[in-house]
């Protein structure tokens, strides 16, 4: 059959996020993919002009719902470094706990969506059912299911009582049991493997060259994770990145599955080591200077550039989200893929277009 161009998105049943791909197909095989983004630009960076640097915390949280806490943590860490305050160590551990809870629920959400992309609705429901427990932990400890809003410049706003810690550990045990129950379905089931193994392969070299980030990079054989940089309380926790060498959709599922279990382990470690002390350091004055901070979001490396000139409002705020880094690898993965597998491959990068466009 002659070349045909098939539009994929911005409204597509498999992808709630608005990315548009023009797929050039020949005999149902994708030959080329041309992306278009820009459907959900909200101008959040520009808001730094009219909102002061403290109010920006609540605004950057809304860059991405799924990893709201991690955005705010990155922003607050940047300002702390700029204003030369150090968050108390209890705050650092609490940040780890909440950020890992966010990673867990983000990965569970993705695992569900991924199952939905290859047509396994029951598995999708199952993962989302587990995720509800994490959402309940968020709501009970921080006050909201998604936008936990626990960060302030200098530390955190909420504390965990010993009973809450015990309750979290109990809930996580149940979460772990339920996730492990799905391990063979997700990773060994014949139909799942048929739809994911060997599809959308990104080689180790390609991943490096195209600048992939996060689980996409780790599924291609690179053991790189921004948590290795040792922000928050990560230096005091036992952590090494999860990685796989296959580089296909299955390997990405594997990496995220294992990271979910790893996050449970990290929360346990953080609760076990949670020190007593202050929640937030006093912050005086306005920020001045220029800084770049990085943290690991569920989708990969998140980068904040902050420039301030001693006024209440920041001069410039620039956010680079991991999905932006993962679009070029996606375009390299698509050629050669059957049209029916395109949703699986697109979802395998865990696209978050709203946070890419802000």
């Amino acid at each position: 059959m002659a070349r045909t161009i098939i539009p994929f998105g911005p409204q597509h049943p498999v992808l709630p996020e608005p990315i548009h791909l023009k797929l050039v197909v020949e005999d149902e095989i994708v030959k080329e993919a041309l992306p278009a983004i820009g459907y959900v630009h909200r101008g959040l960076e520009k808001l730094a002009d009219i909102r002061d640097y403290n109010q920006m915390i609540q605004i950057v949280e809304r860059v991405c719902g799924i990893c709201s806490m991690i955005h705010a943590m990155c922003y607050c860490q940047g300002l702390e470094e700029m204003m030369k305050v150090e968050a108390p160590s209890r705050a650092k551990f609490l940040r780890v706990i909440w950020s890992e809870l966010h990673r867990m629920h983000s990965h569970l959400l993705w695992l569900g969506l991924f199952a939905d992309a290859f047509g396994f609705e029951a598995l999708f429901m199952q993962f989302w059912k587990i995720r509800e427990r994490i959402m309940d932990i968020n709501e009970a400890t921080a006050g909201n299911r998604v936008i936990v809003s626990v960060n302030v410049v200098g530390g955190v706003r909420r504390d965990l009582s010993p009973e809450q810690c015990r309750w979290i550990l109990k809930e996580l045990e149940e979460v772990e049991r339920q996730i492990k129950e799905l391990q063979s379905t997700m990773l060994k089931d014949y139909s799942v493997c048929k739809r994911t193994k060997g599809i959308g392969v990104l080689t180790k070299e390609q991943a490096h060259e195209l600048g992939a980030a996060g689980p996409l990079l780790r599924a291609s054989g690179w053991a790189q994770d921004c948590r290795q940089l040792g922000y928050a309380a990560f230096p005091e926790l036992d952590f090494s990145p999860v990685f796989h060498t296959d580089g296909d959709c299955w390997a990405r599922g594997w990496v995220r599955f294992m990271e979910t279990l790893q996050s449970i382990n990290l929360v346990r470690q953080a609760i076990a080591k949670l020190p007593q002390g202050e929640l937030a350091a006093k912050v005086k004055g306005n920020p001045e200077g220029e800084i770049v901070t990085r943290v690991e979001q569920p989708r990969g490396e998140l980068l904040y550039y902050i420039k301030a000139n001693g006024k209440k409002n920041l001069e410039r705020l620039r956010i680079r989200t991991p999905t932006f880094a993962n679009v070029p690898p996606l375009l390299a993965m698509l050629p050669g893929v059957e049209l029916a597998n395109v949703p699986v491959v697109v979802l395998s990068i865990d696209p978050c277009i709203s946070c890419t466009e802000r």
Partner: protein
Amino acid sequence: MLFFTKTALGNLLRKYSTRMYPHVVREPFKDARGELYNEIDKCIFCMKCSKVCPSQCITVNNKAATWECDPFACVYCGVCVENCPVSCLHMKPAYRKAVYNRELIHMQGELKKKKTASAPKTTPEVATAANPDDLGESPE
């Protein structure tokens, strides 16, 4: 092979994971950030809350002693609650219910004159439609 069968059969025997929502409502968590309310008798109309609010949804008039909040613009972050010098702002643990009209939460207080004998005794006056309890049939 058939790894999911165990889970699927287990689900048949377990109780429902979902709730019959408007009829069965879960108890809210103790510290959840739900609806905002102001103990207007205590409020000193200092405008601190309206200054710190990231969505700029609070309007305080310190001449007329009114406190207004647009609950549709509020993002329930709780920053205003933390910054109120007299701790008169609170958040209920339950979320605001759906309403038919888009109205502000309007509260009329009384200006406190320099420590005169007249203790404030106005009761908070809430615009009827802005009080979610007055709207629609409650699920119970």
